[in-house]
């Protein structure tokens, strides 16, 4: 009897978690989608965002989000992969046991702290050494690249470790060096996990808000260089939702819906890729 009650209770709790996800999804789309139909897809994906004049084109923010995300990947992938490879293949058990939790700890640092470090150190550095306002695509890319490291490192590490040891021995027995084994055998064998890690990291980079607001500069224009400031989709929502009303508010929800679709798609791709491996 007690078991039955516990089971039902757990079932209810489990479903309420899924239920809230469904509710959020429904709410975002219900608030945002009508506006897209009202102004038309063409206008929604145009350059002009000027809520006071009823213009809700999100193209410059899409480009902003895209540049920052690609930048984050350019910073995060080489460092993340190198780190995962070192931990999985070249370091001793002791080093692995110490370093991996520390890297995972990076994920626990609040994003506002990353933003703060960006403002205090990175932005002035870029301003004095490379020119421009400092608040830029470059600064955001570097900070976001560091923020997605834990995701890329831990998923890539796990999939490298999961490659059977017999492969390594087989490769060495054929006269391969350690480096050849890593490049020609282990990375291809762990490819799906590594790609999944990168895609999840990409999802994090697109969705990150606080740190980007603090260091991207938030100028509403299409950037011409990585030293220009940009505004991302997430920043726009966070910056404007406080005072937005009517269509403006609906347009911000439409941005949210658009982001939601991108991130869900990325996650589904990541799950598919990892699922195929098993």
């Amino acid at each position, binding site marked *: 009897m007690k078991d039955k009650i516990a089971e039902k209770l757990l079932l209810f709790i489990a479903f309420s978690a899924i239920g809230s996800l469904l509710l959020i999804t429904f709410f975002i789309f219900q608030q945002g989608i009508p506006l897209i139909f009202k102004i038309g897809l063409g206008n929604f994906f145009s350059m002009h965002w000027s809520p006071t004049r009823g213009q809700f084109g999100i193209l410059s923010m899409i480009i902003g989000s895209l540049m920052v995300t690609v930048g984050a990947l350019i910073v995060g992938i080489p460092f993340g992969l190198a780190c995962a490879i070192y931990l999985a293949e070249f370091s001793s058990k002791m080093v692995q046991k110490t370093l991996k939790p520390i890297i995972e700890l990076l994920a626990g640092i609040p994003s506002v702290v990353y933003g703060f470090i960006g403002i205090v150190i990175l932005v002035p550095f870029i301003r004095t050494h490379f020119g421009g306002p400092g608040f830029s695509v470059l600064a955001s890319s570097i900070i976001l690249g560091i923020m997605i490291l834990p995701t890329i490192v831990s998923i890539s590490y796990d999939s490298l470790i999961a490659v059977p040891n017999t*492969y390594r021995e087989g490769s060495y027995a*054929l006269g391969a060096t350690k480096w050849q084994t890593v490049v020609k055998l282990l990375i291809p*064998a762990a490819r799906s996990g590594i790609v999944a890690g990168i895609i999840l990291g990409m999802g994090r980079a697109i969705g990150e808000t606080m740190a980007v607001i603090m260091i991207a500069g938030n100028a509403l224009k299409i950037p011409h260089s990585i030293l220009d400031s940009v505004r991302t989709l997430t920043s726009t929502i966070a910056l404007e939702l406080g005072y937005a009303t009517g269509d403006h508010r609906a347009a911000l929800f439409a941005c949210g819906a658009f982001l939601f679709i991108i991130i869900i798609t990325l996650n589904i791709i990541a799950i598919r890729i990892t699922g195929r491996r098993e």
Partner: protein
Amino acid sequence: MPKIVIDQLSLFYGQNQVLKNVNLEVYEKEILGVIGPANAGKSSLLRAINRLYEINYARISGKIRLDGEDIFDIPVNDLRRRVGLIFATPVVLPGTIFKNMSYGLKLYRKIKKQKLNDTVADALQAANLWEEVKDRLYESASTLSGGQQQRLCIARTLAMNPEVIMMDEPCSGLDPISTAKIEATMLELKKIYTFLLVTNNTKQAARTADRTAFFLDGELIEVDKTEKIFTNPADARTDDYIRGRFG
């Protein structure tokens, strides 16, 4: 001169000594069978010779010479090319049959496409696998049967043009027909290569080996002509093992 000379070889995993002062010679173009119960140190012996023990953080003392040269004076990758190792469970690498065959070849020098194709075909023929796979070279190697996979591993090692081929219970997971094919391959290849065959199947040693070494608890008990070992061994423990009284 013997192909391989093993002199006072001991091998340790941490505090655990798995080979104890082994002295053994392997002659050119013979099949040397290595038999003995579990934990006799048979696999460790093979892993000492191609220095694969190093990746498991083991250490050795004593000397091993290949053609008179200390194996520690040979670059480890060259050593492993010259002394191939076939594992108990076939280690088929992910990817196609052709990719498995070309993996080792592409590691150490640039090789022209035509030469690569020829080498792969020759090696597959030598391993008696060519007829079965020639039309499916670009299929995944994991679609092959266990016996075919093991012959693929042999072919892959042959493609490296080794001098010595070491086999670690190569037929342990295989049916009698696959086993017979691999034994036939070995007997043919003996004309060109030197073989070290570790086997748990004493009958396999009796069928194929020229000489047989009996190991027990990390010690080499005796080594002699296979016929002598199986009919009139010098040590009573060898006799007991062959007659199935232990192990």
